[in-house]
Structure formats: structure tokens, C-alpha cells
């Protein structure tokens, strides 16, 4: 495959960036998207140019490190992470536009790399359960209904990649917060801190500069883990309950 790549280049966080065009020949359809970028970087290295910076870690679709805006879709045209996207999803001669996640809460570090520390701070604000130290309690002493356990597990698959924010026309992180609030709120261990959790996480979310949700649904379409919109309903419900409890 021969491709024309239009890629955002930005030397550092403060310098202005621009789209640059590259030609790449002999791309195998069996390559992953990131392997294609690796090949491009080898070509750039040979030419003495600065290689393109992009994030990746496990390349198995489970860590949430990679994430690129590909032709206007977060993680590209398939429902998966960028690392699990393959070049067979594109056609020979295609022009592919590659941009970093665009969110003022995720500032660009270099080229396609963004700082997603805002997600870590939202988790620190409430995305946890407090457990006393000592020997582990007997697991069977706290029964969890099967449906709740399954649902909690399904939404706990969120890898915090940020595709929901990248896709959202409002730049909102509601799907991410909803996944965490639903996951912990369904389990007995999550109950004591349930009200504080939602209030503190949403307050941190707003403080980081993410936008408000208008239930458009672009987030769930972009989510590589297919987190459903239900979690945003749960997030809203938990916040409403917290208001009722005087938070």
C-alpha cells in the first residue's frame, strides 16, 4: 500500500504546531497502525529528520496509552485501540490525517503525545475505595449479585485512553467518570464514599477544564471498550442523590 500521511507536528508544548505531509510506500495491510508509524519513523531517521513522537505501551489494546485522531475518528474507523487497528482498514493510495487528542485539559507535549494527567487527578479525587490495612477479609462475607458484578466488570474495562474526550464535541470526560462511578457504585465496597466520590470527581473534572455533557453519544461510539451511555445516566443520578444528601 502507498499512503499519503498528514500528521500534526509540534516540537514542544509551547511552540506552535502545523500539519506536515509525508509519503509512505510499501505498507503491508497486516501492519498495525503504530507499526506503520514505526516504519515512517525509520524513514525519517534515515533522512536525518526528527521522528514523530506518539504514545504506545502494551500494543495489545489493554493499557490505554495509545490514542490518535485518525481521519476524524478517535482510534480510527474500527472499534478498538489505535495499536489494534490494522492497515487493512485503509485503502491503497488513501490520504490519512493523524492528529493528537484535542482537549485543553490534555495539553500537547510533542507531536501526537498529549498529557492525560487530568484523568489521574480525577481518579485521585474519588476514583478509589478506602480499605483498612490488615489481613484480607473473607471474600464470601460480602455477597455481590451476579448482575451487578457483571455490569461492574464490564464498565471497569475502561482503560482511560481519553478517546471519549477526544470524540466529544464538548470535550467532556463524562463517559470516563461515569464508567468509574458506575463500577465502584455497583459494589458494596464502593458505598461508604459514594456521595463524596461523585461530587469530588465531577468538581475535579470541571476544574481541569473539560466541558459539560450534552448526551450526543460520540464518546460511546469512539470508546474501544464499548462503555455504554448508561454510565452517564448513573453518574447524573449519583450526583443528584448527593445533592439530595446535602453535598
Amino acid at each position: 500500500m502507498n499512503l499519503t500521511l498528514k500528521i500534526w507536528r509540534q516540537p514542544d508544548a509551547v511552540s506552535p504546531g502545523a500539519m506536515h505531509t509525508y509519503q509512505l510506500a510499501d505498507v503491508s495491510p497486516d501492519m498495525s497502525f503504530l507499526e506503520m508509524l514505526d516504519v515512517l519513523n525509520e524513514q525519517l531517521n534515515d533522512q536525518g529528520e526528527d521522528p514523530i513522537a506518539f504514545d504506545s505501551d502494551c500494543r495489545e489494546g489493554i493499557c490505554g496509552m495509545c490514542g490518535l485522531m485518525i481521519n476524524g475518528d478517535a482510534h480510527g474507523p474500527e472499534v478498538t485501540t489505535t495499536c489494534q487497528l490494522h492497515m487493512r482498514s485503509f485503502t491503497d493510495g488513501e490520504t490519512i490525517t493523524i492528529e493528537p487528542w484535542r482537549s485543553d485539559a490534555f495539553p500537547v507535549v510533542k507531536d501526537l503525545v498529549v498529557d492525560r494527567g487530568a484523568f489521574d487527578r480525577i481518579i485521585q479525587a474519588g476514583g478509589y475505595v478506602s480499605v483498612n490495612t490488615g489481613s484480607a477479609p473473607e471474600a464470601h462475607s460480602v455477597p455481590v449479585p451476579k448482575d451487578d458484578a457483571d455490569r461492574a466488570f464490564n464498565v471497569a474495562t475502561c482503560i482511560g485512553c481519553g478517546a471519549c474526550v477526544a470524540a466529544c464535541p464538548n470535550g467532556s470526560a463524562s463517559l470516563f467518570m461515569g464508567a468509574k462511578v458506575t463500577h465502584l457504585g455497583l459494589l458494596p465496597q464502593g458505598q461508604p464514599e459514594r456521595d463524596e466520590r461523585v461530587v469530588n470527581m465531577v468538581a475535579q473534572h470541571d476544574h481541569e477544564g473539560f466541558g459539560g455533557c450534552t448526551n450526543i453519544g460520540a464518546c460511546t461510539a469512539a470508546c474501544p471498550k464499548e462503555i455504554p451511555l448508561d454510565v452517564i445516566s448513573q453518574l447524573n443520578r449519583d450526583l443528584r442523590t448527593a445533592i439530595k444528601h446535602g453535598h
Partner: protein
Amino acid sequence: MKGARASRTTIALKLGMAVSGFIFLGFVLAHMYGNLKAFAGHDAFNEYAHHLRELGEPMLPHEGALWILRLGLILSLVVHVACAFVLWRRAARARTTKYVVKKNTGTTRASLMMRWGGVTILVFLIWHLLNFTIGKVNPQGGATNDPYDLMVDTFDVWWMTLIYIVAMLALGAHLHHGIWSAAQTLGWTGTAAKRQRAKVFGFVIALIVSIGFSLVPLAVLAGIITK
């Protein structure tokens, strides 16, 4: 965050929009019902309009109940517009660098039109109040103290009917997304089945409202409703 208040969050603003939006929904349904009285003729329509002013008498003064309802609507309008403005500004600041290429996969046109559609409805609302409530402007120069005649004279002018039809399309699109979105904001759509039901409900109500309101102007223009 230390000292975070639930009532100061973006979700609280959305709750304000959802509740005021549902108040508007109740209003437009009642308003549509009143408009359809036009099909029952001059006297039925005017009697309904007159009765609105006598509602609650003698317990309440003349137009007392009407003004209570109006104040509720004005308050809802202030809440709805103020929250929308704050959320709009937040969203604009959340992404100051735009994408070169952006597809809105998985979205509906109605959901992306909420803000400008809302502005369209607000501009129409001002026009509509000047036309029928505050100004009572008869484009044909006829009587303005007779609600039925004013209505027929207005919609006999083709471009007036056109303005109203366009506004009702905007209202329909706004309700199509707004109703389900409000249900989601209030936390009523916690499963896929409930979400689907809310979306269907929103679509059906949007159809009923936009068609129900458009029937009267179109019937006047077609000569079915006459003076």
C-alpha cells in the same frame, strides 16, 4: 477537591436545563392543544383564549392564574438560557484548537444542532410574542383584539406561515434530542432498554408537537380555516 459542592458542578447546570426543559414541554403541549381549537371555529378558539384569563377566578384576580404560569415560564426561560450559555462557553474553552478533520460518528444531527437550534427558537419566541401577545401586529391591518381573526390574518400571509413552519422544525429537532437528553441527565436511562424507550418517546413527542403546531398555519394557508 476540598469543599467541592455538588450544586456548583456542570451536572447541576444540566439538571437545571433538564427540569426547565420539561416545564417548557408541558407548556408547548398545552399551547398546542389550545391552538388546535382553531379547527372548532371562531367562537371556540376565542372562548378558550378568554377562559385562560379567567382561570382561577374568583379565588384569583383576573389573569391571576395566567400570570402565575407566565412567571413560571419566564423563570424557566432564564434558567434554561443561563445554564445553556455557561455550558456553551465551557465547551468552547474545552477545545480551543479544533481538529483539521473531525467526523461525528455515532451522533444525530439533532444532537449537534441543540445550541444554534435553541438560539433559533429564542429568536422565534421574541418574534412570536411581538406578533401575538405584546405587539399584536396584524400584517393585513385588520382587527387585533380578536385572537382568532388575528391568527387567520397572520397565517394567510405565506411568508408568516413559512417562518412558523421553520420554527416548528427547529422546535421538533430540539425536542427530539432534548427530551431523551433531559431523561438521561435526570438519571432515568440506566439501561440500554430505558435509553431506547426515552429516545423513541422523545422522537414521538417531537413529531406530535411539530406537526400539531404546523397544522393550524397550514390549514389557514390552504383555506380550510377561514374567518
